[in-house]
């Protein structure tokens, strides 16, 4: 062993810690310049040092978060950082079983399913899913749904950071105040079910399914904090420049309760927007991709009614597997409604019209009556079904005629208003599916 080994190690330790003085740096430099083995040892130390940091904290994300600089959140670098952190699960290839937050695994799919069992309890600080999905319950009853690709870091039971991807939180009374931080926003629960998606450019989508949330500027912002309260059915996109605007379309999955999911790269429906511009109007449409089948929600904000086959018939085979666009029930009052649906390739757009209403001119003009019928239900306590009688099962259903339009290529299809003014209260908003 080199007789100066201890001294070399001491110098290296001080240099790599950033505390070596000028003489120590010169001495280490002199020794390294003539000692190839020492240089190779130095490279190994630097390698381990960097790897430990990346393993404990995926640094591209963390550095950006801890030292916010506007230019670094713009465009590609944030996208790069977020996407890299998601894809590179190996950065967190180990996490320590000591510390972290205790979670019960309620559901798991994808590659993690081989090592995690449903019902097991784990301690987690950092969770990155490259595929599949997970449903976790914290000790305070908060249930989190994560859909890959996603990267979540727990601070404690009441606080987590979404570094990339989509997380939906169902917060009970014990979890009130549960907080999700993202690069561009801090979302604080007010007793609710809500979802947060961090997009690959660092923007954040927030959608509220039940109750209310507060949306704050992100942690560490030096400007005066502003707060926005969102209610059920609202969604906004918060940019990294703290610009907030309505987010008209959110992607969801799940039948009993909505779960946010990231859009697939080959999405057929790439956007939905409307011409409603009221102040404070933040209602969202939902897209449930490939989900059309009995039991799927026709509307974004109504929990009970589901698409059903007509009694004694099969569900129309041609509709099965279509993307379901959940309209919101209040749309039916919009006499000038323009609902734009953007598609990425040729497809068929289906519009389901309440049989009790007149067929709008724009439907007669552009669509073909398929002769198919569907129904939605059961309905209860809603003016849409006021005056209707219950069926043999004591339930009320609304019946629809299915119209369709062939769309030859990628582009935008504009749907019009469902009813003339004054006729909408006791009629259902139309449903939309695309396949």
């Amino acid at each position, binding site marked *: 062993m080199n007789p100066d080994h201890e001294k070399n190690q001491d110098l290296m330790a001080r240099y790599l*810690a950033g505390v070596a003085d000028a003489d120590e740096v010169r001495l280490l430099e002199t020794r390294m310049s003539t000692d190839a083995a020492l*240089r190779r040892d130095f490279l190994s130390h*630097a390698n381990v040092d960097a790897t430990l940091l*990346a393993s404990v904290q995926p640094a591209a994300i963390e550095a950006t978060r801890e030292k916010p600089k506007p230019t670094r959140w713009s465009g*590609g*670098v944030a996208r*790069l950082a977020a996407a890299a952190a998601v894809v590179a699960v190996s950065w967190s290839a180990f996490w320590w079983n000591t510390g972290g937050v205790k979670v019960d695994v309620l559901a798991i799919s994808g590659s993690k399913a081989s090592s995690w069992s449903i019902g097991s309890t784990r301690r987690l600080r950092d969770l990155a899913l490259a595929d599949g999905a997970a449903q976790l319950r914290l000790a305070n009853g908060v249930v989190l749904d994560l859909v890959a690709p996603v990267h979540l870091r727990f601070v404690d039971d009441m606080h987590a950071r979404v570094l990339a991807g989509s997380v939906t939180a169902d917060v009970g009374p014990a979890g009130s105040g549960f907080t999700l931080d993202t690069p561009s926003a801090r979302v604080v629960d007010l007793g609710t079910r809500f979802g947060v998606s961090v997009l690959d450019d660092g923007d954040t989508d927030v959608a509220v399914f039940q109750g209310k949330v507060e949306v704050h500027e992100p942690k560490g912002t030096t400007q005066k904090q502003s707060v926005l309260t969102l209610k059920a059915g609202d969604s906004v996109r918060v940019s990294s420049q703290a610009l907030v605007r309505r987010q008209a379309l959110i992607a969801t999955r799940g039948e009993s309760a909505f779960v946010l999911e990231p859009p697939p790269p080959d999405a057929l429906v790439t956007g939905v927007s409307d011409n409603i511009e009221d102040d404070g109007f933040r209602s969202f449409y939902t897209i449930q991709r490939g989900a059309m089948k009995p039991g799927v929600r026709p509307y974004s904000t109504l929990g009970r009614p589901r698409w059903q086959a007509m009694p004694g018939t099969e569900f129309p085979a041609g509709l099965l597997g279509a993307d379901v666009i959940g309209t919101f029930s209040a749309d039916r009052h919009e006499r000038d409604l323009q609902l734009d649906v953007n598609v990425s390739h040729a497809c068929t757009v289906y519009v389901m019209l309440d049989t009790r209403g007149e067929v709008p001119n724009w439907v007669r003009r552009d669509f073909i009556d398929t002769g198919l019928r569907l129904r939605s239900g059961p309905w209860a306590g809603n003016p849409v079904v006021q005056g209707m009688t219950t069926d043999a099962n004591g339930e009320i259903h609304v019946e629809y005629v299915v119209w369709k339009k062939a769309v030859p290529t990628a582009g935008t299809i504009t749907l019009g208003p469902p009813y003339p003014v004054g006729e909408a209260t006791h009629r259902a908003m139309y449903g939309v599916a695309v396949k």
Partner: protein
Amino acid sequence: MPDPDFQTHAPFLRLYVEHEPALRGYVRSLVPTLQDAQDVMQEVAAALWKRFHTLSAHEDFRRWAFGVARLESLEFLRKCRRDRHVFGDEMFDLLAAEAEDAADDLTEERKALDACLQKLPGEQRTLVESAYAPGVRMDELAARLGRTAMAVYKSLHRIRTALIECTKKELAKEGLT
């Protein structure tokens, strides 16, 4: 800066993710502290993204990325040389060249590191986890542990030394050294 969708940049992301650990280690060997390395890596990522269209063959990504990382590290050192104690240009060039030459071996060492981390005694694991946690200040950590900052630095250095020794043994078992 170009801002097309995620899919358009899948090749870049795939290459970056594949080579990022090597780049991070490379940059770490060229700048004095971990925080410096993090700062430089931000610039490296931005520069690679911006110049990706100039890369003619994806097979050359690592060599090209190392070149970009070397330039960004050099730029960083030039800026901080006035008030920081850093290696001179000759040592910088020597380390840069040798780090690039040793990149494959260092990659193997990183792979072996996972197994070695699992073998660390609990106390050492806890110290590593604490010291590398986001936003940690070494003086505060040392105060919490009832030790001096320098004592913590030395402990961490000893842990890294032990991990390096362990990785050598792991690689020897696999016949890679």
